[in-house]
């Protein structure tokens, strides 16, 4: 499997298109892959080279996954169908599924993996791909990357495993009841990409923020069952840990600032602003 070149079965760059796909009226099931990450505003502490999960004050949706979920909700509203929210991780992830149900996810799937942090990205993709197939979904929405690892491999990786087309950096998806049209940036502005199911869309920040839940949704979410699937339930061999990170390189430190005092330094400051900083 080569994750650098995911299989793309049908890419058509057009304005007006006719695409093959399921016929209008067929039931569409969208799997939305959600990852729970430390909230971007939460203070985190590092212990043993890893984020100390016990010290994370707030867990949230990975922001790009929020765009995927909101887009799925909008597609469901316009074209019908059903949304299956899938997350993999320890028990704390169930909160994420409840939050997804509160805004409109129909089915909740928790791939139970207490040791998810020991898995590499390919192993996680194996788990998620198996869950997608078990859910019966033919369309997958996910974020383009997670806010914690920023690997950006889940969408293409799952697409490869389930034999689906994959469109990345998506801002919007629509459906005419047959195929799907995704909007994403191009060198000329934006392009529309038409694909048919099975397909995976990896979302960038789009035109919509995730909707706020309401009390009715929250109360329904409380009653909604969560299907918990273990690795064994999925019957998948996630393989050996094959991705090794040899080293981390922090960004180069910025050079220290320069300090000037007194009226005598004015000409020096002006010349530096003009000739070095190029701001005047």
């Amino acid at each position, binding site marked *: 499997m080569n994750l650098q070149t995911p299989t793309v079965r049908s890419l058509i760059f057009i304005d007006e298109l006719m695409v093959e796909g399921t016929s209008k009226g067929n039931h569409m099931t969208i799997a939305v892959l959600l990852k729970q990450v430390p909230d971007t*505003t939460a203070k985190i502490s590092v212990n043993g080279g890893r984020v100390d999960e016990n010290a994370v*004050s707030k867990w949230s949706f990975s922001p790009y996954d929020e765009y995927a979920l909101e887009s799925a909700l909008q597609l469901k509203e316009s074209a019908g169908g059903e949304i299956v929210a899938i997350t993999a991780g320890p028990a704390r992830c169930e*909160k994420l599924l*409840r*939050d997804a149900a*509160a805004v409109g996810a129909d089915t909740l799937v928790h791939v139970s993996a207490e040791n998810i942090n020991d898995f590499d990205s390919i192993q996680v993709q194996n788990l998620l791909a198996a869950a997608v197939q078990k859910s019966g979904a033919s369309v997958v929405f996910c974020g383009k990357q997670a806010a914690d690892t920023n690997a950006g491999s889940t969408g293409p990786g799952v697409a490869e495993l389930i034999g689906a087309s994959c469109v990345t950096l998506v801002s919007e998806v629509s459906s005419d009841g047959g195929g799907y049209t995704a909007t994403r940036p191009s060198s000329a502005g934006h392009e529309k990409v038409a694909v048919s199911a099975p397909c995976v869309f990896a979302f960038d920040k789009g035109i919509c923020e995730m909707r*706020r*839940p*309401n*009390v*009715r949704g*929250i*109360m329904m*979410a*409380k009653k909604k069952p969560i299907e918990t699937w273990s690795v064994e339930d999925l019957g998948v061999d996630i393989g050996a840990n094959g991705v090794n990170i040899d080293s981390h390189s922090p960004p180069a430190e910025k050079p220290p600032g320069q300090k000037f005092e007194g009226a005598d330094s004015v000409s020096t400051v002006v010349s530096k602003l003009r000739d070095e900083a190029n701001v005047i």
Partner: protein
Amino acid sequence: MPYEALDFYDVDSLLTDEERMVRDMVRDFVDEEVIPKIEHACRDGVFPDEWRVALGEMGVLGAPLKGYDCPGLSYTAYGVICRELERGDSGLRSFASVQGSLAMYPIWDFGSEEQKQYYLPKMASGEWIGCFGLTEPDYGSNPGDMITKAEDMGDHYLLNGAKMWITNGTIAQLAVVWAKLDGVIRGFIVEKDDPGFSAPEMKGKHSLKASVTSELVFQDCKIPKDRILPGVKGLRGPFSCLNNARYGISWGAVGAAQACFDSAKEYSLSRIQFTHPIASYQLVQNKLAWMLREITKAQLLAYHLGQKKDAGTWIPEHISLAKMNNVDIALEIAREARDIHGANGILDEYCIMRHMANLESVKTYEGTHDIHNLILGRHITGIQSFTREL
């Protein structure tokens, strides 16, 4: 800096998952929609209509009421909603308190089936705003002597009198008005366009500036016979509503106090005087420690009262104590926070002075601080001290 709610004893861990989800929903709304706009709303003296829409869409209006499209949440959840709203502004919480506890509740508890079906769904959605007319210009702590009266004219009622300090009055589609019919206090539903009814806004407030405060004027105001609340007579009606509103205030004040503490903590850590952050000085730490202590006690008080409300084991005096205490400490915390902020504390760049000014109103409305002390005094001694023959 993102808001970090002070919860020293982890009281929120006692909430149910559902209550925490409601908390997060309202907290996000306040962060995203209220705090960026509140100072402008105060300067302009308006209650932004989009907040009404959002509260309706979130489905938090009339939070603990069941049926008739009402949310049906726990009283604890209602308290949490009030706390999060008042962290934004007391005026916002006042809007929700009046709508839910003072306008929807009496219809829900004392209204006819037809009244419930007609009014409650559109009030729960925020489509219709309600207000509550009890206080009069000359009768605040002593509403039993109100002079607004209703007359039975055979095929309609005629209302005459005036109410004052009415939150939401000018923007409301309906008012639940308490008036004497043959000397007995009764509740009436007055709609905005009823002949003889007007609701001019009161201007010039230094407090609750982002909340609409009005007079209600009834000059031969004619209302249909089916607008009387059939289920209650006497002061029990309005006092039942006030108990629920006061309960919400006991939580709301904690939110205002948390906002002031949060700002004071951040400011003291960043403000350098005599080469060190002022947070490093003992006098400032003493103030912050006192705030922490009082907020923690207020949180425990509010939570336990919420549990008693949900279990039905409360008495009105429990609510008096919580309302009185929590508003009192919130106001003192706002004042101490202003002190920590120094001169900056008077600017609307910080929330402090706004909360302080708001809490002066909150201390007085829905039973003044002193009246709640007298309620407790009566409970302790069995002797009422509200009035005496002179």
